[in-house]
Each structure stands twice: as structure tokens, then as C-alpha cells.
């Protein structure tokens, strides 16, 4: 039987990938972010996952608004890197896991989630910005990506993402082969990318969110999207994807590591949870 052995919550941003590629790991502005990933990386090396399931959002790179899925699951053997409009990063394509991917597809549909099933699923910074800090970039650990619409409203609720996480847990537990799975919830934390409050963050809410994610995720699942956006900006609504990770972990978790920095327009959070 497959088991979920860990959960990671992480912000994603093009700026993180750009800083990584430019070798700014020791730059004073970026050093707190990069060193913040090191304990989580060491923990992953220790627990040796066989698979990453990554809940993220596509930023109009794989999909366009002509046909924009609320949920989309990548079941292919390879996930290419999407060009986001300024050229690709020097990273190899990601390996997928079709056997688990199709199992997850069947299990989710049985569980009344109906993702668009993608045999070709190029991925953007929603997956690739933080991943090089957590695993070797020859990508030995396969990835099953699950994209969520958090851009074009109507966007699914925080409660819906929480339920998605419980459905992912049931899917992992019903997979017949042994497999150690780490689930990722990505995005956020607070950021506002346009309008009168451009650049505004809410660091108090970012930290309260990470507290509650650990101790009382039910409270976070009860908040409306408007509450998320009023506290954390219209783009901060991405934070709901962390709830899917948390629900996939089951009722109790043990914190392994937590980090928070906010040098630019986005609060960058990291939370590593053990089962």
C-alpha cells in the first residue's frame, strides 16, 4: 500500500527561479529564502520519497482561457517545462508516473472530483520554482502534477481544496503497491500584483495562516475566497492550495521545518510536515 509520509507547503514565484538560475543563493536579499529550504531538503533526503504529488496552478502557460480547467491532472511519463514568455530555464523535463497518475484519476473521479486528464502537461514556475531547492535537478523522483484554477473566477472554495486533499489521501491509500508519497501544496503566500494596493503583503496573516494550517486547518477551510483575497490580495487566493496538502496529511501532523521571508512583492512561506 502506498502511504503519505510527508507534506510540503511552499510559495512559488518566477523570481525564485530567476534568483536560483543567477546563483543569488548567497545574495543578502535571497540568502534567508535559500537557506530556509536546506533543512526541508535534508529531511526529504532522509525519508526518501518515491513520488511527489504537487498541487499547483498554471499561470496561463499550459492552458489558455479558450478551455480553462478547474482541475487538471498530469498522467504522462514526462512533463515538459513551459516557456512562460521569456525563455526556458536550464532544467531537464520532469519525469511523471503514469501508473500512479491513472490510479489517481480513477480514484478522484470515483470520489466525485473530475479533473481534466492531461497526457501532455507542461509545467511552469508553479512546480519548477521551488523544486530545485528540495531535490536534485536530475529529477530522480517522479512528479504527478495537479493544477487548480485560482486565476479565473469562479475559483473553487477553500473547503473544496480541503476535500480534494482528503480524496488524494484515499487515492494514495488505495494504491496497491508500496510507495512513499510526499504531497505538495504550493502558491502564495499573500501578494497583490495589480491595482491600487499593488505590492501589498500581509506578513501577520501569512504567519497566522501557517500556524492554523498546522493546528486548525478546519478554520482555514471555512474562510470564503473573499476573506482570503481581502487579507492576502487577489493573487494571494493561491494559498487555498496548501489546504489540499494539509488535508491529505490526515488529522495530526508533526512540524519538521518552517521558514518565512518576504523580500519582494510576495510572502515566501515554507512548511514541511511529517505524518
Amino acid at each position, binding site marked *: 500500500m502506498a502511504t503519505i509520509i510527508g507534506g510540503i507547503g511552499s510559495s512559488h514565484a518566477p523570481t525564485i527561479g530567476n534568483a536560483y538560475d543567477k546563483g543569488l543563493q548567497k545574495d543578502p536579499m535571497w540568502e534567508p529564502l535559500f537557506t530556509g529550504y536546506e533543512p526541508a531538503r535534508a529531511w526529504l533526503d532522509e525519508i526518501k520519497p518515491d513520488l511527489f504529488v504537487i498541487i499547483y496552478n498554471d*499561470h*496561463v*502557460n499550459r492552458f*489558455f*482561457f*479558450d478551455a*480553462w480547467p478547474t482541475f487538471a491532472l498530469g498522467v504522462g511519463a514526462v512533463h515538459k517545462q*513551459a*516557456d*512562460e*514568455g*521569456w*525563455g526556458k530555464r536550464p532544467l531537464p523535463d520532469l519525469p511523471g508516473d503514469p501508473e500512479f497518475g491513472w490510479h489517481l484519476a480513477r480514484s478522484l473521479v470515483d470520489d466525485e472530483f473530475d479533473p481534466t486528464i492531461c497526457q501532455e502537461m507542461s509545467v511552469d514556475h508553479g512546480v519548477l520554482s521551488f523544486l530545485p531547492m528540495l531535490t536534485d535537478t536530475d529529477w530522480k523522483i517522479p512528479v504527478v502534477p495537479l493544477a487548480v484554477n485560482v*486565476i*479565473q*473566477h*469562479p475559483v473553487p472554495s477553500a473547503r473544496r481544496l480541503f476535500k480534494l486533499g482528503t480524496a488524494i489521501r484515499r487515492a494514495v491509500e488505495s494504491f496497491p503497491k508500496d510507495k512513499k508519497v510526499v504531497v505538495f501544496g504550493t502558491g502564495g503566500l499573500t501578494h*497583490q*500584483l*495589480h*491595482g*491600487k*494596493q*499593488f*505590492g*501589498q503583503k500581509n506578513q501577520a496573516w501569512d504567519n497566522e495562516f501557517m500556524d492554523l494550517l498546522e493546528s486548525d486547518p478546519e478554520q482555514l477551510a471555512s474562510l470564503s*475566497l*473573499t476573506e482570503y*483575497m*481581502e487579507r492576502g*490580495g*487577489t*493573487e494571494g487566493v493561491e494559498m487555498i492550495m496548501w489546504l489540499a496538502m494539509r488535508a491529505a496529511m490526515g488529522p495530526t501532523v508533526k512540524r519538521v521545518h518552517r521558514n518565512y521571508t518576504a523580500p519582494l*512583492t510576495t510572502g515566501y512561506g515554507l512548511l514541511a510536515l511529517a505524518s
Partner: protein
Amino acid sequence: MNDIVSGALLFTGERSAQGFRINKMAASLTEPANRDRFKADEDAFMRSFGMTDAERQLVHDRDWKGMMDAGASIYVIIKIGGSTGHPLPVIGNHTAGRV
């Protein structure tokens, strides 16, 4: 749901429909060949997407706030910025009226 949240336009399906042509042109800039075509002749490239005179003018003017008022998504207009040399802080501050 109120469609202005945190002082910003909420990107609703209706806005997405309004801005469909601008968004489609901008999203196509994820292809290197399209970036080359856009940079070589912005107007011809935009016309090939059926963009209206007013929509093309917004892009010519680098009027990021105007593009968003016309239904563009922040996530796609930064792709235009990728080809015109306008990074997110420039675009974001323009939409905030801080320019």
C-alpha cells in the same frame, strides 16, 4: 461576489471574455517564434488576433492599467512585458496609478 477586491479588478469569466483577444495574443508570446513576430511588427501581429483598434492602441501605449480595464489578466500582460522590457514592478505600479 464583488468584482473589485483589495482595490483590484477580480479576473472573472466575464472579464476574461471581454479581454479574450488581448489575452490570446499575449499568451501566444510563450512561443519564441511569436515573440519574434511581435517584436518585428507589433501591429501586424496583433491584427492577426483580431484585436480592435482600441485594444491595439492600449498595447502600443504600454497602458497596462487600460489593458486590465479592457479584460486582460495580469498573468498574461506580464508576457507582453517580457517582450517589451517591462518587468512586473513597472506594470504593477502603472495599474496602481503610481507612474
